[in-house]
């Protein structure tokens, strides 16, 4: 009746030593990004191709979003692919290359030094991504089951490599014209490979597994997830073809509509998981993670406006609004929520895994719930104020919004430190 087949037995989870450095680097990147945003609120009045805007965008995309996702995915890969992480060495190398490459790249952009600093940073980031990609592919190959989540993570890591490799070409294109056109002409392709191919695919792939798991929900629908997977990839390929063939602007609505449909399916998936949950109480971390799904409507509205006003002067402001809603809205909200769902598990395993029948605290007791609520309040207020500042071009709103976002980053870092430095209590 109860069988101990070849796939049973306890699978070792990824060591905390592999994962924690990514979380710590990401937390520091977030606080630096918010500080830079506060110091440079005037960039909102400039074109988006501006040194400080590029620096903040890349620090948010790579230092904050990508680093924490890389860390979390090393931890969650066994859960997603139902196998084990292939190489700790590749994971460590991935961290070392990224942790040295990202500061160089961001400094290069900030100072607009398009020479050695920027180029070395870009090369190191590519080395990091190659290590990660090889590790993901090797882990999936060795896994006995290949579920839809594994395809999401494999495709996302391939798109990440495409993004950073294209980014590398753009960096070298600043000093030697390797590409037919100026680097600025390719920015939207580079950005969307990263935003849609990497962030969106990975967050949906991981979220569709974790959201039902943390809600203890009975809901699962791999068929819908396959549809979402196909729609997003087709939309992204379609966008790249349209962009590189200089197609008529309004045609950009077609990949946009495909992504919109995919997101509607994902939102419905999350809603069904929520409705069919076994545990009625939903904690604050899950609430902010679910809110991030709803927050996707903001960048979508901005993007719709960008396409509509593509030839108008207001286009640049809308692009900034779009980028802001993605990095400081959707990505930040989901990371804030998921950090305090995943990090306590990692630290708990480190501190308590060898203890037997002691009065061990629950993982949620490793961080402060009150600090989380304060952080969420600062974050949501700051996000809305800064958003209003962009729309109204009002410096007071921009400064106060950025100050609140920085305050939320400080509280976030304090809470992360409280979790990471947790000592055993018995």
């Amino acid at each position, binding site marked *: 009746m*109860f*069988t*101990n*087949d070849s*796939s*049973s*037995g*306890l*699978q070792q*989870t990824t060591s905390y030593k592999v994962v924690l450095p990514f979380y710590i680097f990401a937390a520091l990147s977030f606080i630096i990004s918010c500080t830079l945003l506060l110091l440079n609120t005037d960039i909102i009045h400039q074109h988006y191709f501006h040194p400080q805007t590029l620096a903040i965008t890349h620090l948010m995309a790579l230092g904050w979003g990508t680093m924490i996702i890389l860390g979390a995915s090393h*931890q969650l890969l*066994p*859960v997603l692919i*139902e196998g084990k992480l292939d190489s700790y060495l590749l994971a460590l190398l991935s961290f070392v290359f990224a942790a040295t490459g990202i500061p160089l790249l961001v400094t290069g952009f900030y100072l607009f030094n398009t020479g050695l600093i920027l180029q070395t940073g870009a090369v190191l980031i590519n080395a990091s991504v190659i290590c990660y990609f090889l590790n993901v592919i090797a882990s999936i190959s060795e896994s006995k089951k290949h579920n839809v989540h594994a395809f999401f993570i494999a495709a996302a890591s391939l798109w990440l490599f495409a993004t950073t490799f294209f980014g590398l070409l753009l960096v070298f294109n600043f000093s030697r014209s390797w590409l037919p056109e100026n680097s600025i002409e390719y920015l939207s392709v580079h950005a969307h490979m990263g935003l849609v191919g990497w962030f969106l695919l990975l967050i949906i792939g991981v979220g569709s597994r974790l959201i039902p*798991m943390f809600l*203890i*929900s*009975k809901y699962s629908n791999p068929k819908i997830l396959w549809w979402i997977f196909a729609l997003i990839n087709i939309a992204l390929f379609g966008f790249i073809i349209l962009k590189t063939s200089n197609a008529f602007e309004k045609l950009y609505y077609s990949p946009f509509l495909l992504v919109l449909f995919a997101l509607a399916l994902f939102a419905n998936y999350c809603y069904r998981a929520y409705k069919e949950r*076994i*545990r*009625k*109480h939903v904690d604050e971390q899950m609430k902010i993670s679910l809110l991030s799904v709803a927050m996707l409507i903001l960048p979508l509205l901005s993007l719709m406006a960008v396409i509509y006003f593509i030839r108008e002067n207001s286009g640049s402001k809308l692009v900034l609004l779009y980028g802001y809603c993605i990095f400081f809205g959707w990505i930040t909200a989901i990371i804030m929520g998921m950090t305090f769902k995943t990090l306590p*598990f*990692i630290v*708990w*395993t480190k501190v*308590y*895994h*060898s*203890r*037997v*029948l002691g009065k*061990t*605290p*629950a*993982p*949620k007791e490793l961080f402060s719930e009150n600090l989380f609520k304060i952080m969420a309040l600062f974050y949501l207020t700051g996000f809305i104020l800064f958003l209003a500042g962009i729309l109204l071009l009002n410096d007071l709103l921009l400064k106060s919004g950025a100050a609140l976002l920085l305050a939320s980053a400080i509280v976030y870092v304090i809470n992360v430190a409280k979790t990471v430095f947790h000592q055993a209590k018995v």
Partner: protein
Amino acid sequence: MAVLSNNDLFCSAALAGLYDVFDPEIGLNVVDLGLIYRIDFNEETKKIIVTMTLTTQFCPMGESITADVQQSVSDAFKDYQVSIDLVFNPAWSPEQISPEGQEFLDR
């Protein structure tokens, strides 16, 4: 889901202790959560085998939960050697939560 056993009396004694072993994330004990499938006692060899599962095979707390189960049963039967048979077939599903466990999760 009822826990199967070849000795109901001994099984009740083992379960009494296991009601104090919790899944740290869910906050529910392993018995009401439906993780314990079977407890077999061999009075001749003084061996106990606890057949159990986890909510997921890749549960980061799996090692800790199984160690706690082993320790709890060992504490109740000091002369016995306790081993854990961790199985994932049948896999755990929310339907295995007891009515008492469901009541706790409804709060």
